[in-house]
């Protein structure tokens, strides 16, 4: 290096000058071109307490400490496609909604206040709002019970080895909702020693195809099976706040009564309903950052903001 220096002092000095100019110029240009380019209009669902998007992007130091403390581990860090959002946390509600954990650990972990420390309760978060994006597939509107629906889906998978985890989940949910009498029917069918929930769920792992059919029929005829799906409300982490009301409505064409899931002002947009919605494409989805006032102003389907 030093040898080269002494040999060609002038060209080297020139190179230094031009390269310095070029590189610093490049940095300025990156700022000038990058800022408009890297700004994204698309909004992501942010963790609870997130400041308004621009302020959030300015404040987030991209350390990921919110991910570290997130009990359900549903936060992701955004990649390059998110512009200035590189390294900022977001939630993909369909893969896992925010459970609004007690104490909001992510908010407490944030060192910069990008997740504002002035909220401490999940119900005070303003992440977005849920909207019924596909009323045509919504099981509540169609009057179908979610457990029956899921069981039938299982049965449709022709290759008979019903997905054990899915089946277990369905049965766990079902058994909790059965009446005592129905539990006894269950007990006698599978010759179980007693009617405690644990025993009922522990029915033989190797179910026959006919058993599955029986279970479906049994579920359909049970009291629970008569009720239309209300999973979004049941799974809502703050359902005490009456986030979703099921309103009686009548279809003007078929004159059939149905229950319309009406999202209320108390919804914070945590995304659990979207995660748990049993239809193949979630019938309910979160619009990030959507405010109740904006929603009331007409645009129930504000421009697709998810991606």
């Amino acid at each position, binding site marked *: 290096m030093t040898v080269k220096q002494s040999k060609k002092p002038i060209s080297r000095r020139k190179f230094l000058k031009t390269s310095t100019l070029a*590189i610093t110029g490049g940095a300025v240009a990156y700022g000038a071109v990058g800022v408009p380019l890297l700004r994204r209009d698309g909004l992501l669902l942010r963790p609870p307490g997130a400041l308004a998007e621009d302020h959030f992007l300015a404040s987030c130091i991209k350390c990921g400490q919110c991910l570290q403390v997130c009990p359900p581990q549903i936060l992701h860090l955004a990649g390059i496609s998110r512009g200035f959002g590189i390294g900022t946390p977001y939630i993909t509600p369909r893969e896992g909604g925010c459970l609004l954990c007690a104490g909001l650990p992510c908010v407490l972990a944030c060192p910069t206040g990008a997740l504002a420390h002035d909220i401490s309760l999940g119900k005070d978060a303003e992440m977005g709002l849920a909207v019924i994006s596909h009323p045509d597939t919504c099981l509540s509107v169609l009057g179908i019970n979610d457990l029956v629906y899921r069981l039938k889906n299982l049965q449709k998978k022709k290759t008979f080895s019903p997905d054990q985890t899915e089946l277990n989940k369905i049965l766990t949910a079902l058994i909790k909702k059965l009446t005592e009498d129905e539990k006894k029917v269950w007990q006698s069918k599978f010759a179980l020693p007693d009617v405690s929930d644990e025993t009922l769920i522990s029915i033989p792992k190797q179910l026959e195809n006919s058993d599955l059919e029986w279970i479906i029929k049994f579920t359909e005829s049970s009291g629970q099976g008569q009720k239309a799906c209300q999973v979004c409300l049941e799974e809502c982490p703050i359902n005490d706040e009456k986030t979703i009301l099921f309103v009686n409505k009548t279809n003007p064409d078929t004159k059939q009564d149905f229950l319309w899931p009406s999202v209320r002002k108390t919804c914070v947009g945590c995304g659990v309903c979207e995660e748990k919605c049993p239809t193949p494409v979630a019938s309910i989805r979160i619009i990030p950052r959507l405010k109740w006032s904006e929603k009331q102003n007409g645009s129930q389907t504000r421009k697709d903001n998810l991606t």
Partner: protein
Amino acid sequence: MKNNSDKKDGKQASVKTFKGPGLRSQNHPQPGHGKHKWRNIRWAILLFFNVLFFASFFFDIQILEGTLSASRLLGFHMIDPLAALQVILASKIIMVNLIIGVVTIILIYLAFGGRSFCSWICPYHWLAELGEKIHQILIKKKIIKNHTFDRNIRYYFYGIFLALALITGFTVFETINPVAIISRFIVYGPSLMLLWVIALLIFEILYSRRAWCRYFCPVGVSYQVIGLMSPLRIKWDKEKCSNCKRCQSVCLVPHVLNDCVNKGKSEYVNSSLCTRCGLCVDICDDQALSYGVKYLDKLI
């Protein structure tokens, strides 16, 4: 006590003695002094802290949580000064946590020597060190030529990116900060931005020796400022030095040794650019270089 011919043609001698036994030490036996003692300790510490970061998320071991941008050591905030400045300028809000975190970092690096962050903690620096080795091999084989840039670019960058943060309201530099990108990669897994880091490394290997750390990295500038005040420095013993200049041949920032080895003016390596990596301490057969604590050494 030393071969004086060495002093005269220092440059040549350094080339000659760099690899082989050379001066090493017929005269000075090395009592348990491994050739890469400090480098190995340094890499072990670098690995240790980055594994702590990794373990905090992967195994949920809550000792050192976060990344190099901002983290918590046993619950105490630590925040990178440049990142904190950007956040403050972009958001126009001064958060108490940011101040606490930056002050903690300043105190820590006051004790451990400023840019020691670069060589003892920064994972990008470690990659760059490996890249440098490849670069040197390629240079030796005359496949490539090295190109140098102006060292002041880092300061321009510091200013430009702080100004950009203030004007645009975004932490612009954090989108391309390779230190943060690598750190996030270690803790949270890969992202596409790794391509940028790989491009940088290729540039360093093929075009300019360890260019990012040497000329561009504004993250190091904050630590440099802290290093100005940190008493932990490399100490140079004039009496023992045979002036072979091998220390400069291995030094990550060779000109920091000028005042000592070349000019004989200073007892300590006072340049803020010194990363306290200890490569010079390792290579010195005369035991003329060691870690010292300026001001305190004299008291003791």
